């Protein structure tokens, strides 16, 4: 091997090494030195969380650039986003920090926005939305877990019981074990009954198993229906009667709805009462007739005399009869 060939190989080898070092550098630093093409957009966040330079910037999932640098601005953290020149971002699109992996591979997600909004210029500020970071979510989850835990423990206390009575299940269990024999007997009876029904014994059994009974029942129901419709008719005529009464037609109607007639009736009743009072007190002829014994006795005496006179009349003929009658009477 001659000397120049050896030199060429070493030279080639060395240049290859330099090229590979450069390739490595380009790969790892995301081509920052070489291809700073496109434009930058500033995104301000209260907290950049785990965002680092060279992290992706994605619009609706498509990679459109990378985070160029992260820095502190006025009261906020700023991420400068290097956007590839072929992509435009509408000014109403908003950026959020999205966590893609557990060990902190974050990226910035930009939504599509609307197409009619003007595109963002170089150095413009993009709207941002705050995303809750995993720590705060975890804190809330822990609180929720505590609440759930206490709720579950109270439920389990209710079910398993902590007092002397025990919980629902213990009570239920006791109830069951105490009434075991009764329940068994009931179950046996129930079984017998269902067996009978099944075999077509008894009314219920026939009802269930006999199709004739079913037809009868159906006919009975039909009768019921007819009866009901008749009853309906009766009711309808009763209704018309009532309507007439309401309208003041007929005697009953007058009695119920005519005020004058009611007044008259009241007076009449009053008079009748007066009349009966007087009678009961013995006032007037009828009263005396009813209440005074003497009149009755007088009448009785008179009747006796008349009787005797009749007897005498029988004996002495009509003239003496008239004579004795006038004697006895006066």
């Amino acid at each position: 091997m001659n000397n120049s060939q050896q030199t060429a190989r070493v030279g080639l080898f060395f240049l290859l090494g330099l090229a590979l070092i450069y390739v490595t550098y380009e790969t790892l630093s995301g081509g920052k030195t070489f291809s700073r093409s496109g434009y930058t957009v500033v995104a301000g966040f209260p907290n950049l969380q785990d965002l680092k330079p060279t992290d992706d910037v994605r619009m609706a999932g498509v990679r459109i650039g990378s985070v160029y640098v992260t820095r502190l601005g006025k009261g906020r953290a700023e991420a400068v986003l290097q956007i590839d020149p072929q992509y435009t971002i509408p000014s109403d699109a908003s950026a959020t920090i999205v966590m893609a992996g557990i060990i902190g591979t974050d990226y910035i997600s930009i939504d599509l926005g609307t197409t009619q909004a003007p595109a963002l210029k170089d150095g413009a500020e993009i709207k941002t939305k705050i995303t809750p970071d995993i720590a705060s979510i975890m804190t809330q989850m822990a609180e929720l877990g505590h609440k759930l835990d206490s709720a579950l423990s109270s439920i389990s206390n209710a079910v398993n019981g902590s007092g002397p009575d025990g919980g629902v299940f213990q009570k239920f269990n006791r109830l069951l074990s105490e009434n075991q024999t009764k329940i068994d007997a009931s179950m046996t009876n129930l079984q017998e009954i269902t067996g009978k029904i099944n075999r077509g014994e008894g009314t219920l059994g026939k009802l269930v198993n006999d199709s004739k009974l079913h037809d009868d029942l159906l006919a009975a129901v039909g009768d019921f229906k007819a009866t009901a419709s008749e009853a309906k008719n009766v009711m309808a005529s009763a209704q018309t009667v009532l309507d007439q009464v309401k309208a003041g037609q007929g005697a009953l109607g007058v009695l119920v709805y005519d005020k004058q007639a009611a007044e008259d009736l009241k007076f009449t009743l009053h008079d009748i009462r007066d009349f009966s009072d007087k009678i009961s007190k013995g006032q007037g002829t009828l009263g005396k007739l009813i209440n005074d014994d003497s009149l009755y006795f007088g009448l009785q005496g008179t009747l006796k005399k008349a009787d005797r006179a009749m007897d005498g009349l029988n004996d002495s003929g009509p003239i003496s009869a008239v004579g004795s009658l006038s004697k006895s009477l006066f």
Partner: protein
Amino acid sequence: MNSIRSVLEGVGSTLILFMRSISHVGTLSRQKSRFIEQCYVIGYTTLPIVGILSFFVGSVLALQSGYSMQDFGTQQFIGALVGLSMVRELGPMMVAILLAGRVGSAITAELASMKVNQEVDALVTMNIPPAKILVLPRLAAVLMMMPVLTVISNLVGWFGGALVCKYTGFISVEPQQYFQALRHVVKFKDVIDGICKAEIFGFIVVLVCSSIGLSTRGGPREIGAAVTKAVVSSLVLILVLDYFVTKLLLAILS
């Protein structure tokens, strides 16, 4: 007592050789042909074995970590693990170990046989310092070639890992996902760290092997003993220094 003395002798002679070599740096431009020859031996001819070994180191790293990670379902981070391990640790160390085995042993054998055959004495007699024409070109060549070998080792290891991830059933990580995880974790700073380590290892391997070769005394049997001693010393030094150099680099860069 004798062994401690020999260790101290070795350290001392190595340091003296280092100082002598450095003092002749100005003459490097006149030793271009020797430098190119050493570059060829150290870099170009070592490339195939570096490539093969790095490929399988990356593959087995991906396979083992994929096997361990499948319990946690974190296979998508294999790229990060393999990438960072190759760049920071395994790339430089594999290259240094290969260099000790393949180049260091050759240097010790060559210099020891020259010493045993009194060629070195002849050079000294002609007022040509052996550090100048035998050691300096090698040191310069190894400094020149180590970054190249390391970067090739890193990249080949990465691709080996990616291939294993794609075609192993229980890992099944697409190369795109693998390299995304890798890019996310590995920084160019880590590559520079790895190259710094490789430079230090390579320099020490060549220096120690040259020193042991040049301090050989006796006959042909001592040549073999010197080669064994050189390779063992180099490997021990690489692994022990690895820890301290890593710590130092982490302290400097953080």
